[in-house]
Every structure is written in structure tokens, then in C-alpha cells.
């Protein structure tokens, strides 16, 4: 599998795959069996081909490698050549597969007749309708056609403009629901540019996140998770063994907060004041860098009003915490502050902190070169909607965005669309917006279409189709170009979006290159999935002119504040149609298939709200209901609800699940004053997790930094020699094992998604999860600490089969379905299993899964199934075997080229996906393997889960690291 290979050998693989065809994938439609009578040159039965492309699931734009079997893409992995993802991929990225194969995708063009009934029409009819309406609109005058959609890369932007141009309009609106406009404004104020800075956490010693969930849904989660793991890895700095110092200031203990040393609860909106106060500490202590070009006196007067004591007064955030943050930030050799939200003051403060400590261009930098395709500003979006309402638009073409769902009521999306004569919706799964459209056109999924991305200067991602379309859909770009071609006096430079993308990229080829050189370049970028060049940090001059007295930031009201946050999997709602993302438990709450309203026990008591009781949350904009999740991981002044649920359309998996917070939010903000009351009715929140209390058992272990410095906790020494009753079994060639660094693991669950995709794990739905029939082979085990001060904020670690050497599951199986392989795995022979379930009873880790029913994948989701892994029937026990199919694949390859297996040649799905690189797989017989070296290098942190049982797991965990609260 490529994500584990060296870059060279990966390119070899990719070359073999995408050598010739411009459009890869097999000739016949992917839903049909492939007739091998006339074999397709690109399809070797049983052999995967790999295609590089780019992920379109969030704006980060990671590069991906698609594994294609017999013309069907089965798994997605990170592209090692891409500097952003660097070979890793998040859960959302992998779930793109379920968007591609979603059973509720629009299969044919649909026309909405009178009474809103949809009727199927042919593509020709559809195109004619479209061009007619467009023509009519163009005749009626200028700018009577509009495009409303998500930013989908430079080529797409060009196509859109050309299309609108052909019909005499320039109403392009690239709308991103979670667009961080405040950050752009702040950047403009301070640095005079609107693009977002790049962060280099790994260059820092101290990190302060002001409500920025950089590990879940920030600007680039995979990249930042990787950096954060490095930041938190034990290093010797200034002669002392230490780990990065991190703080999180915000109303809710998010996953990012949980992984920080300190989570400092704050009133929603109070973060800005805290941030300014930290700056105050820096100024007071003269911790201002010379090169920052800031005048100390100016600064002093600037932050005068934010002395910690005063801020503590106003916000309730303890002054000593603020001072601690200031000290850690100011003393650090490299520090970074990050912010999120709609509070411009907060972003200003965060930028100022970085700038003042001379970290601008070091931990936070603006890159030189072409900025990204700018997203339409909020005001322009509002203008566009207003134009529709005022009847200035006859035809609106919508693609990639779901404004009816994601726009707060004040933006009146639905009303605006109603006023448009002809609404054309192009997309995959019909959503709330599609329900308003007169013409619905099935568009390609990003994995079926040509596209490109420019996530940041120096990184250009090329998205090539990885397979033939699943449905009779067309690329959105092609639809628009076809329509444009029909326009009078239209001169469109490209035939198709493929042409457009190619033209765009040939322009990137070395200047004055010959035709061959260009072709060579074109092949190269398709192999590598993009063009990656070093972009130099740009020297930006800080203009504090506008900052005589900084805005205090809002939201210090003492009332109850409603806070919505982007769900790690569902994001702004686009993930909700993908069963994997619904079923993988949200790492911190462990809740599946629902929305929840997280509320502090004291607040709940005050409002008389019981566990799981539906809370009515009412604001000036409306009301929603969500079940109460009573937890201490939220500020008493806040009630927190995740975004993404509450769809009323968008397919069978999304519709009628949970509540949609956008409904009660004001435009451009994720928090608002709210009145909450219990409804008396309740809906149980479903989680596969049992107790949250580890009861002091050695499942997820952690050690304090001091203990690490003293080389391991004295009372818990390293593994004693296991007691052997029988002569140990010699493993002649390999003994597979894993090393998992709990300290690096963020809980992001990319491994879980990877396992679902690679091993054909069925999703079971809310009821069956409740009945204890969830099928995940790997899960994130989450526990709350008993002693909050002397433990990490949250115990999080991946739990999977430990492949015990003395496996309790093996001897109890009456038929040898569970047995020990020659390479030290706990094999499970599915078609030998009779289903006594004794193995699971005897498994201390409870990592085996039983098939209670015959698993089902509504077509075409079944096309995603990995042909290397059997689909298990009812009555069979199943489990993780370190992706034995990948082990076999690599061993066979090695045998074919008559060589020894190379270390790192085999990478199980979970290890390959992990953004934090927490999981290393290798051969325990090879002391030099990366996996074994990782154990040795972190000797003091080694531990085995439930070691006292002498099951001798093949997985060695590295203890989580934490700082004793109140210690530097």
C-alpha cells in the first residue's frame, strides 16, 4: 500500500497504474461486471491500481491515493507526496467513498412539475430546458443568471465565470458555510492580506488555542494533528526533557482541548479579553521580541485595560492561569496562538500574540505566491441573496453548497430561492436546497470528476477521476460548459472541464517547455496528484495603526449562551449522509447518530433538566430541541450543540436525525444568547461506550512529565519476564506487532474509518448500536480521569485486537476458528466459525465482533467492498488481524521479486490513515524495524494493556504524557 512506501517506490506504483489512460478506470460502467473476454489494459483482475487525486471533503485539500479494484475505488489513503496530508487522511476524507457510492444519489435529471412532483427527464431535455431558461434570462438583461456554490478550485472558478459570462452575468458566489471571515478581516487589518496564515505548531514550544479546534475541524486538521504530535513528543530543550506546553481557552472541552495540558473554561466570547490579557502579561514582563517591530509603549497603552486581575474579574478566568499562559508563551523559544470563531478582536489578539513574540514567519506565516481562490465575503453573499429576493435573478445554478440548510434564518435562503424563476441544482444526494430547485441534475462526485485545488501557495492539487461514474451523472463543470457553448456569441476555450483543468495545468508547466516536455509534465502531475513547490514565507509588515485601543470582543454577557461547533465528522452537515461518519462515536462524547446539547451539571440543575431530556433552545431566530448531555466538560454559561445534524432531506442516513443549530443562529456567528428549558420529553443518547471510569485498570495509561524525567514511574516498573508454563513458540520468519503512542493519538478516529473501509465492516444504525451490535474492530477507548489534577484531561487510545501471544480467545474455540498463525497473529477463520462466541467471552479487551444479522450494504454501497476481504455472514465472529490481506499482498510481492520483506512495506489501514502517526506496525523479530525502535526509544513509556493477565499482547502502547496541573 502506497502510504507506507518511500516516495520513489510509490511513484513507481502509481506510474504503473495511471500510465496511459487520460481517464482512468475501466471501460465498461463500473456497476457492471467487467468482461475479461476483452481485458482492459488498465485492469488486472485481483491487482489494485492506485490513482492520485485530491480530497474535496473540506477546504484543507489533502492529497489522496485511491485504491481501485476492477474499476471500483475501494479505499482512500493519504498521498505521501502531498505536503499537507503527507500520506495521512482523516475520517471525513475516507468517508468520501460513501458519498460516491451513496444509495440516495440522484440517478437521473429530474424536473419539478406543478405541485412539486419530480419527474424523470432525459439529459437532452434537461440541457435544452437549462439553455432555454438561460437564454431567456440573458435576453432579459445583464446579471440575471447566478451561480451559488462551494469554492471548488481555480479551474472550476474559471469555468463558472466563463459560463456566467456567456450569459452576460458575473454573479458568482462561492459560499463556504464555515468560512472564517473574522480571521481574514483581522489579517487584513494587521497584515493587509486576506488569506489565512499557515501554522507550524511543530516549530513551537508553547501553544494557546482560543477555542480553535485545530485537531478536528480547523484550517487543516490532518496537517495540524501531525504537527501537534511532533509538538507533544518528548524532546530535550535547553538541557531538559520536555513536551510542548499547550493551553485551550474556550467554553467546551473539545478533542483539541482534551489533548492540551490545560483546558481553561471560559464564557463564550470571553476569549478575546483573555487573549489581550495574555498580551498584557507579555508586555508587562517585557517578553516582546525586538524584531517584532512593535513599540513597547504603544503596546502598553494598548492593552492597559486588560491586566489579568481585571480580565479575571470580567470573565471569571483565573488570573493565575492567564499569567501562566503569558509566562509559557513569552519564555518559549517559539510559540503559537490560534483562534477561531466570528470574534474579530479574538483573531487580532491571537495574531498580535504571535507577532509580538516574533513568531510571525516562524510558527505562523503567510506564504509568498498566488493566494487561494478567495471565498465570497459574507456581505457579498448577503447581497447575492438579496438580489434573488428582489427578483433580479431569473436562473440560479447551485452546486456543492446547501444554503437552505447552512444559512441562518436571517439570511432567508429559502425565501430568496423561491423568488428565483428557475433554480437549477447540480449535486449528488438531493438536500434541502435541492428540494427548492425546479431542475435537479445529477453531478459527478469529486472522485468521478476532473478538478484541481489551490489550498495554499506552493501547493496545487490535481483531482483526477479515479473511476467511471457510478450513476448517469455529469461533471458540474461539463454541464455548465455545455450550456455555455449553446449561448449566442459564446467563445468558450474548453470543450470540457477535463480540458479546462488540463489547460490550467499546462500553464503551470515550465515556461517555454516543448510539447513533449509538457506531456511529460502533465503525466508527472497526474502521477503525483499535484504540483508541490517550496513556498517561502512572505515578510508581512504589521500595521497596528488601527489598534490604538483594541476592541474588547463581545460575549461577556452573564446570561446563557448557545454555542454551535463543527462536528469532527459531520463538519457543516455535509458528512451526515455517510453512515460511517454517523456511526463512528464522536471522540469526546462517544455519541452516535444524534445531536446532543452539552450542558454543565450546575446549569442543568438550575434549569431542572434531567439526563437525556429534550432541551428546548430558543433564540430570537427560532427554537430547536436536543437531548441533554450533562457533563462537566462545558462552561456553566454555555449550552453546546454540534453542527451537521437536523437534516430534513439529504438521504436516508441524514434525514430526521437530531437538530440543526443553524436554525437558531444569527448570520455569521456560531454563538448567541439563548433561553433553555426542559420539555419533559426525552430521547436517549446512544453510545457504544460502557463506563467512562477506568476503575484503575491498566487500559489507557498515562505518566506525568516528572515521572518521564525520572525514567518511568517507580511504582509501576517495566514488564517483568512473563511466566511461561510451556516452551515458547518460535516464530521462524515474522512476528507482527504494533507500537501505539497514546501521547500522539488525538482520538480523531481516522483509524476507525480506515478499518471500516478496508475490512468491509458493516454499519448497523442507531438501534443496533444501542443493542450492542456495533461492528468496529478498532475503536477509541475513552475514559474520564479520576484525579483531574494528576492526569490528562481525557484518556484516549485506540483499542483493537492485541494479537496476544497467549491469546485467551484461541484455546477456547472448539473448532480452531480462532488460532495462532505462524506469524503471531490471532487468526480467525470465518468459514470455520460455528458461533459459540466463547472467544469474545474470554477476550479481556472485548475487541471481537459477532455478526448478529446478515450484514447489508444498500446498493451501490456494496461496490465499495474490498474484494481482498470476505464479507462475513450471520453467526460468525470477526476481528482485526492487522489487515492480514495487506500482509499477504506484501509477502506475495516480495516472494515474486524474490527478496526479503522491507520494513514499512506492510502498513495496516489504521496505521496508514493516522494523521498523528501514532501507530507503527512492524516485525518484532527485526530489532531494527521502525516499530521496535520506537519501543526502545520510548522505553520508559512502554506498557501493555491489562499486562497482569499475561496475555502477552503484540501491541506495546506508549504512555500518554501530561503535566500535573498547576506545574509549568
Amino acid at each position, binding site marked *: 500500500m502506497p502510504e507506507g512506501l518511500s516516495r520513489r517506490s510509490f511513484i513507481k506504483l502509481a506510474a504503473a497504474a495511471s500510465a496511459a489512460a487520460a481517464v482512468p478506470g475501466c471501460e465498461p460502467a463500473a456497476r457492471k461486471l467487467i468482461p475479461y473476454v476483452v481485458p482492459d489494459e488498465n485492469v488486472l483482475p485481483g491487482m489494485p491500481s492506485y490513482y492520485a487525486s485530491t480530497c474535496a471533503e473540506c477546504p484543507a485539500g489533502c492529497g489522496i491515493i485511491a485504491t481501485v479494484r476492477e474499476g471500483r475505488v475501494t479505499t482512500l489513503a493519504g498521498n505521501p507526496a502531498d505536503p499537507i496530508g503527507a500520506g495521512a487522511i482523516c475520517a471525513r476524507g475516507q468517508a468520501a467513498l460513501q458519498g460516491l457510492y451513496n444509495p440516495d444519489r440522484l440517478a437521473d435529471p429530474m424536473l419539478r412539475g406543478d405541485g412539486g412532483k419530480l419527474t424523470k427527464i432525459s439529459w437532452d431535455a434537461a440541457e435544452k430546458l437549462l439553455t432555454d431558461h438561460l437564454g431567456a434570462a440573458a435576453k432579459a438583461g445583464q446579471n440575471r443568471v447566478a451561480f451559488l456554490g462551494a469554492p471548488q478550485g481555480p479551474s472550476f472558478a474559471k469555468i463558472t465565470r466563463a459560463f456566467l459570462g456567456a450569459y452576460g452575468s458575473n454573479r458568482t458566489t462561492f459560499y463556504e458555510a464555515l468560512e472564517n471571515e473574522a480571521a481574514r478581516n483581522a489579517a487584513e487589518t494587521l497584515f493587509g492580506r486576506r488569506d489565512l496564515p499557515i501554522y507550524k505548531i511543530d516549530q513551537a514550544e508553547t501553544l494557546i488555542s482560543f477555542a480553535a479546534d485545530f485537531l478536528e475541524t480547523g484550517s487543516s486538521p490532518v496537517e495540524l494533528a501531525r504537527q501537534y504530535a511532533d509538538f507533544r513528543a518528548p524532546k530535550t530543550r535547553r538541557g531538559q526533557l520536555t513536551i510542548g506546553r499547550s493551553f485551550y481557552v474556550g467554553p467546551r472541552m473539545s478533542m483539541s482541548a482534551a489533548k492540551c495540558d490545560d483546558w481553561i473554561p471560559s464564557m463564550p466570547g470571553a476569549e478575546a479579553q483573555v487573549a489581550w490579557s495574555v498580551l498584557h502579561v507579555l508586555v508587562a514582563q517585557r517578553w516582546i521580541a525586538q524584531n517584532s517591530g512593535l513599540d513597547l509603549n504603544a503596546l502598553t497603552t494598548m492593552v492597559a485595560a486588560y491586566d489579568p486581575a481585571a480580565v479575571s474579574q470580567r470573565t471569571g478566568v483565573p488570573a493565575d492561569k492567564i499569567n501562566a499562559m503569558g509566562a509559557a508563551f513569552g519564555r518559549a523559544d517559539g510559540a503559537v496562538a490560534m483562534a477561531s470563531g466570528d470574534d474579530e478582536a479574538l483573531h487580532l489578539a491571537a495574531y498580535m500574540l504571535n507577532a509580538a513574540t516574533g513568531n510571525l514567519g516562524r510558527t505562523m506565516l503567510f506564504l509568498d505566491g498566488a493566494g487561494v481562490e478567495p471565498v465570497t465575503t459574507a456581505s457579498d453573499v448577503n447581497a447575492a441573496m438579496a438580489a434573488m429576493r428582489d427578483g433580479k435573478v431569473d436562473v440560479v445554478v447551485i452546486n456543492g453548497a446547501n444554503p437552505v440548510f447552512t444559512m441562518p434564518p436571517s439570511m432567508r435562503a429559502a425565501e430568496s430561492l423561491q423568488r428565483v424563476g428557475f433554480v437549477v441544482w447540480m449535486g449528488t444526494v438531493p438536500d434541502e436546497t435541492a428540494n427548492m430547485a425546479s431542475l435537479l441534475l445529477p453531478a459527478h462526485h469529486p472522485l468521478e470528476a476532473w478538478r484541481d485545488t489551490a489550498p495554499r501557495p506552493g501547493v496545487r492539487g490535481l483531482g483526477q477521476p479515479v473511476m467511471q461514474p457510478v450513476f448517469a451523472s455529469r461533471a458540474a463543470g461539463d454541464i455548465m460548459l455545455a450550456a455555455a457553448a449553446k449561448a449566442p456569441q459564446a467563445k468558450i476555450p474548453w470543450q470540457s472541464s477535463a480540458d479546462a483543468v488540463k489547460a490550467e495545468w499546462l500553464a503551470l508547466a515550465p515556461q517555454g517547455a516543448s510539447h513533449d516536455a509538457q506531456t511529460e509534465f502533465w503525466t508527472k502531475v497526474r502521477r503525483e496528484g499535484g504540483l508541490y513547490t517550496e513556498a517561502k514565507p512572505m515578510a508581512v509588515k504589521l500595521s497596528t495603526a488601527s489598534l490604538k485601543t483594541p476592541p474588547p470582543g463581545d460575549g461577556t454577557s452573564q446570561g446563557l449562551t448557545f454555542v454551535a461547533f463543527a462536528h469532527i465528522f459531520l463538519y457543516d452537515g455535509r458528512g451526515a449522509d455517510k453512515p460511517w461518519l454517523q456511526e463512528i462515536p464522536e471522540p469526546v462524547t462517544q455519541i452516535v447518530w444524534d445531536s446532543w446539547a452539552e450542558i454543565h451539571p450546575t446549569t442543568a440543575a438550575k434549569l431542572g433538566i434531567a439526563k437525556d431530556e429534550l432541551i428546548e433552545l430558543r433564540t430570537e431566530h427560532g427554537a430547536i430541541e436536543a437531548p441533554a448531555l450533562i457533563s462537566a466538560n462545558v462552561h456553566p454559561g454555555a449550552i453546546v450543540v454540534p453542527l451537521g445534524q437536523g437534516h430534513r432531506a439529504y438521504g436516508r442516513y441524514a434525514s430526521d436525525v437530531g437538530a440543526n443549530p443553524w436554525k437558531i443562529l444569527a448570520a455569521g456567528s456560531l454563538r448567541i444568547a439563548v433561553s433553555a428549558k426542559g420539555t419533559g420529553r426525552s430521547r436517549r443518547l446512544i453510545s457504544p461506550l460502557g463506563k467512562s471510569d477506568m476503575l484503575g485498570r491498566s487500559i489507557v495509561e498515562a505518566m506525568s512529565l516528572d515521572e518521564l524525567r525520572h525514567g518511568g514511574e517507580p511504582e509501576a516498573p517495566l514488564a517483568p519476564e512473563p511466566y511461561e508454563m510451556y516452551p515458547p513458540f518460535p516464530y521462524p520468519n515474522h512476528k507482527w506487532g504494533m507500537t501505539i503512542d497514546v501521547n500522539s493519538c488525538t482520538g480523531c478516529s481516522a483509524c476507525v474509518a480506515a478499518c471500516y473501509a478496508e475490512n468491509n465492516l458493516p454499519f448497523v444504525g442507531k438501534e443496533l448500536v444501542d443493542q450492542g451490535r456495533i461492528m468496529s474492530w478498532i475503536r477509541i477507548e475513552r475514559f474520564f480521569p479520576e484525579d483531574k489534577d494528576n492526569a490528562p484531561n481525557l484518556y484516549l487510545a485506540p483499542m483493537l485486537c492485541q494479537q496476544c501471544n497467549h491469546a485467551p480467545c484461541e484455546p477456547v474455540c472448539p473448532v*480452531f476458528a480462532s488460532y495462532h498463525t505462524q506469524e503471531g497473529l490471532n487468526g480467525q477463520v470465518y468459514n470455520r466459525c460455528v458461533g*459459540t462466541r466463547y472467544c469474545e467471552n474470554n477476550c479481556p479487551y472485548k475487541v471481537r465482533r459477532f455478526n448478529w444479522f446478515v450484514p447489508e450494504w444498500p446498493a451501490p454501497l456494496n461496490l465499495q467492498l474490498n474484494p481482498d476481504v470476505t464479507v462475513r455472514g450471520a453467526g460468525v465472529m470477526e476481528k482485526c488481524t492487522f489487515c492480514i490481506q495487506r500482509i499477504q499482498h506484501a509477502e506475495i510481492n516480495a516472494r515474486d521479486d524474490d527478496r526479503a520483506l522491507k520494513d514499512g512495506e506492510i502498513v495496516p489501514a489504521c496505521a496508514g490513515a493516522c494523521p498523528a502517526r501514532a501507530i507503527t506496525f512492524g516485525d518484532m523479530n527485526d530489532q531494527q524495524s521502525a516499530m521496535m525502535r520506537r519501543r526502545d526509544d520510548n522505553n520508559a513509556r512502554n506498557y501493555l494493556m491489562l499486562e497482569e493477565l499475561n496475555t502477552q499482547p503484540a501491541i506495546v502502547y506508549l504512555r500518554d504524557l501530561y503535566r500535573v496541573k498547576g506545574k509549568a
Partner: protein
Amino acid sequence: MAAALQEPTTPTFRDIDRGVLRVMDFPGMAYWIWIAFCFSLVAIAAILWTRQIYEGLGVTGLRQPVMWAIYITNFVFWVGIAHSGTLISAILYLFRTRWRTAVYRAAETMTLFAVATAGLFPMIHLGRPWFLYWLLPYPNERYLQPNFRSPLVWDAFAVSTYLTISALFLFMGLIPDVANAREHAQGWRKKFYSILALGWQGTDRQWHHFAMAYLLMAGLATPLVISVHSVVSWDFAMAQLPGWHSTIFAPYFVAGAIFSGVAMVMTLLIPMRKWLHIEDLVTPWHIDSLAKIVLLTSLVVSYSYATESFMVWYSGDKIEQMTFHMRYFGPWGWIFWVMILCNCLIPLVLFSPRIRVNMKALWIISIFVNIGMWFERFDIIAGSLTTNFNPAQWHFYTPSITEIMITVGSFAWFLGLFSLFAKFLPIVSMTELKEGIGFLRQAIRKGSSTSA
């Protein structure tokens, strides 16, 4: 007491024959309604099982981490019931216990059908029951064989052996009686009994070998009965799950088995002797002796509970202690205390001789014991699985209608088969009553004097 009694002369051999054979007269309407009722419940269970096979075990309430619950509980319960039969017929035979003669046939019959019922449950609980035969070694082209390290394979051998031996033992004992019945029966019954009797006529030669074979069978069945329930207990003791992994399980389960089994014998005999009018064959004296065994085994079981808990406390094993804390005081604590009430406290009233011959009281007590022992097995199995090593996987189990109805069906199945036997084959051994007729005569006097 034998001294106190002058040699009585009744009942005579003929009285015994009449008493027993009268039972086998052609049954009346009530009987057939009862049989129909039993087997319609069995039919319901069968339908639900078919559905379970068709749809998968998802129709049960089983879940992570409680992979075993009611089905295995029933298995252990019924195997346990079976044990008293062999105890009474084999072990007491070796001890030449006199009072067994009247009750052992019923007990043996119960054994056979209880094992037959128990044997269904491993099948019912399997994920893929159609592959049950994979648990047995047999030559096959794939060279696949069972894993003899697995207690489930021991089970397969132990239970099937037990079924065979108890069937043979019962059949042997029947031969002289059906020969006798043959002489009185007419029509198809005569043929039926003649075939069963194998032409037995009670010659000296036949009796000579019969006696030896019967003695040896008893000798073989005695260690077997101990081994079978030990093996059953090892299904749990061999696992390392807290609450299961304990060395006292074998004796503890055997005692429990005899306890529940003898209680079940009482549950069946007390109404039976009334309805079948065999009070003067199965006398209060007999029942009194059974009650004494129940009392004794109840004390053994109580002692086992105490030892188990003590060991947990003494071991200092935090995880084990947590499991037991949950067993006593967790959400399922009530099950444990019901069990203590039924198995340890209620049987104590059997210290009173008057209770021991009060049929109504005895019957109610025996019912309580059955309930208590069922709960004991359930608590050990499902309870321990719930509170396993990994708290993140602690979940409680609730049975589904399928499991409940199949359990009910198993009781119906057992009672139905037993009722059929009782009506068509001699449910009391005439030959052995005759052999020990002197004691029977005394018993009747004693019984009438005490129960009066």
C-alpha cells in the same frame, strides 16, 4: 425403627403390580389436554428458533459483551437437573439405600429427559447451528479437527456420554418391569412391551448377568455424574473472566446440580404420587429422605457461596472484587439476593421433620429451589460477562421474547416427555420394590404414622 415394627404382610407383590400397572391404564381427556398444551408451547418455541436460525442471533437480547445468557443458563440448569437422577439411581444403589427403590425410576426418567433438553441449548445458542457436528472429530477431506483444549469439546463428549449412559441405564432397569407389564397388557401395548422386554423372562441366567451388569453400570455412572457437571463448570472456570475463573467451580456446581435436581424430583413426584394414586408406593418416608438431601446440598451450596466470596476478598484481586461487588450491590444485585433467599435461607426450614413430610410445603420449597438455582446460573454467566475486564465495555443484558419463549418451551418439552413416559412405562420400579418389600411395608407404616 425396624425393630419397633412387627413383620407386616402388606402390600403384597400383587398390590405393587396393581398399584404400578394401574397408572398405565389408558389415559383420560385431562391427560391429553395437558400433553397438547405442553407440545403447543414446544411448537411456539420451535417456530421462534426457526426464525432465529433464519435471521441470526440478533433476535435475541445478546450483545457486547454479554455473549452468553439465558440459553447457556438453561443448558447448565437442565444438566444440573439431570444429575439427581443418576445420583439416586446409581450412587444410592451402590450405597444400597433402601428408600431409593420407589423413586429412582422417576428420577432416572427425569435425568434422561433433562439431558435431552439440556442438549438442545448448545445447538440453539450457536451462531451457525448447522455446523454443530464440527465439534466432534470425524475423518474429513479438509483434515479439520476439533480443538480438544476447548471446554466446549469436553462438553460435547461429556454430555453425549451422559445421555447415552443414562439412557442405557434406564433401559436396563426397565427390562424386567416391561416384561411384567407385557404379561398384563393387551393389543398394541402387549407388542410394544414385548419388544422392549427383549423376551426377558427372569431366568436365573438372565438375572445373574443382569445383576452384575447393573452393578457395573451404577459403578460407571457414579464418576460420570461427577465429571459431567465438573466439565460444565469448566466452561466457565477455564475462562479467565472475573467471576468465572475459580477453582471451586467443579465441586460447587456438582453440589448445586444435585441440589436443584433433587428439588426437581420432589417437584415432579409430589403431584405425581397424588394424581397417579401411588401414595402407598411413594410414601412420605421416601419424600422425607429426598428433603434431607435437599437440605444437605443446600448447606453445601451455601458454604460454596461463602468460600467463593471469601476467596475473592482474600485474594486481594481488585478486579475480581469489583465484579463481586457488582454481583451483590450492582443493578442486578436483586438477582443475587433472590438466589440467596431461595438456595440458602428457605431450605433451612427442612430442619423441621414436620415440614419434611408436609407435601404442600415441600412442593413450594422445591419450586423456590429451582428458581434460585436458575438465577444462580444466570447471575454467574450473564452477570460476570457484564462486569468484565474492560469497563468501557460494561453493558447490561435484557432477554428477548425469543429467548423467554424458548426457555418456556424447554420446560414444556421436558414435562411433556416426562408425562408421556409416566403414562406408558412403569414410572415406579416394580422389581426393586418387590426386592425391598419389607422396607416398603415399614415405610408405609412409618409414613402413615408421621404424616398423620
